[in-house]
């Protein structure tokens, strides 16, 4: 229900990370930067032409490329 990836999310929406696709090294890398399952995120911006995505997770702002962002799935927060 309501599961979308960071690319599909709209700027300003909040959610909780539920799944990170791709190689183990990738999810580890995101993990050590603070992006892990069950962490809540706020999307700050989305750029046109498959540009990067910026999110706030905990106290950190992270910018990640379009391809990476499409591998991170979140459960949207109910309004």
């Amino acid at each position, binding site marked *: 229900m309501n599961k979308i990836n960071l690319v599909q999310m709209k700027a300003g929406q909040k959610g909780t990370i539920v799944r990170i696709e791709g190689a183990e090294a990738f999810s580890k890398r995101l*993990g*050590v*930067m*603070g992006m892990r399952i069950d962490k809540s995120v706020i999307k700050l911006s989305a750029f046109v032409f498959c540009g990067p995505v*910026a999110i706030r997770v905990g106290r950190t*702002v*992270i*910018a990640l*490329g379009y391809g990476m962002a499409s591998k991170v799935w979140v459960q949207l927060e109910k309004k």
Partner: protein
Amino acid sequence: MKKIVLIGNPNVGKSVLFSRLTGVRVLVSNYPGTTVEFLEGYLCVDDEQMQVIDLPGTYSLEPSVPAEEVSVKMLSLSDIIVNVIDATNLERNLYLTMELIETGRPMVVALNMFDERKHRGVDIDARQLEKLLGVPVIPTSGITGMGIKALKERLKNVPAGKSFFRTHEERWSSIGHITESVQRLSHRHHTFWEALEDASVNHAWGLIIAGGIIFAGFKFIRFVAEGLINTVFEPFFQNVYLPLLERLSVILGQGGLLHSLLIGKMIDGKIDFQQSLGLLTTAPYVEFVMVLPYVFSFYLLLSFLEDSGYIPRLALLLDNVMHKLGLHGFAIIPVLLGFGCNVPGILGTRILESKRERFIAATLISIGVPCAALQAMIVGILGKFGGRYVALVYAVLFCLWLFLGLAMNYFLKGYSPELLLEIPPYRFPALNLLAKKIVMRIRGFIIEALPIIMLSILVINILQQVRIFEFISALFSPLLGRVFGLPKEAIWVLIIGLLRKDIAAGMLIPLHLSVKQLIIACLVLSMSFPCIATVVIFLKELGWKRLGQAALIMVGITTLVGGIMNVILP
């Protein structure tokens, strides 16, 4: 001698702490990746000297960029580990701490930015943290110097632990327990800074803010530099220094070898700072009056932006464009450094992941990014005829930069990795650190530039004496005349450009060229081979083969663009 290494996540203040411990001055900025190679310094505790090594930031002991690999390699050579962690971002920082504890090496945790945690709504029980981690924890602040003494004391005797292994999941679960019991987060409202932080990475607001900052930046650089030239440097040279030189000229008999070397040619019977080409006239004038004020105001602005934390936001905003060039947004950092001096720019490409990216970035910097010294001269020489000519040079270079990047991205095998970057919070720059940084950069500029400027002037003078001038000028005159529309003497500008770009540009003044010729000469000078210092660092960083390839591209591009400009400019 004991070896101490400082290791921690990017942008947690390792370099400030290093500077505090050792007294060695290092460049620090508010973005991840300021330190791209390790730095060494010494620390004395109770007559025992220890070597301290500051390592590039790393998130874990499984490195993913070359700068991180350095950290992991150096770690194995250390006697004591000082793990620097950001108190305002405890949970994430503890992952590396866990990995380090597992190595069983003697270690101390420096809980840095401890003074900042309060207004970020974080409270940490450092004693409890020490108990749970099983290694000493010292609250510190690199900016204010808090806890440095205590940290030094603790370094006297650090026990080793046992080495063991945990899985990725076990580490996180352990971190979860620890943070729950030592950290209290208080909820507070968004501050003004945080609202600004969010706005400046937003796709709409961010671009507006970036446009404003770049425009204001240009205005600022010109305002400060021109102010300094008109009120300080020019009056000093004309009113104080010139009379001294005139007296020296009389003493030297107004002629002869020594006179032409030190004072240079007399123009209409007078010393002309721009045209005399003497060691005591043109050399210091170009360096201190025409170039230094611009270098200073550029670094003032850059250092402020670096320390405030704005630059990573620019990286995010420009990521789309940079991807078309085979780079990602973070590559804007070496490019910006290149606008000051190409040497740190090319060194800065170490923050990029692949060899391909590093080659593209380094080539783009050495061809399409004129250093502050050359830019100052372009403004000085062309600005007299009107700002639009300066703008034209910048526009051509920018188009070239885009085109070259697109072409390299198309032709070079491989792909460009995606952006993955932590964006630091805004901080108001600590003024003492800002001042230190500018002093270091300016001193670095003078120490590097002055000897080579002197050497350039010496070479010009000697060549003029031995009459090889005419021979070489004649040899290159068809190329320069037909392709670029420049007089044959301009070959010397290009040759001296290999040593220093600013003094080379200064040599254009006595040639009395037309505006069109000046524009072409400035462009050719910017695009052609970079100065010797840049060549050396390019070679060191990327090797002979890459340097050869870049040189071929340079020669091709310079001939092409210079030739086209010669045809299309009226």
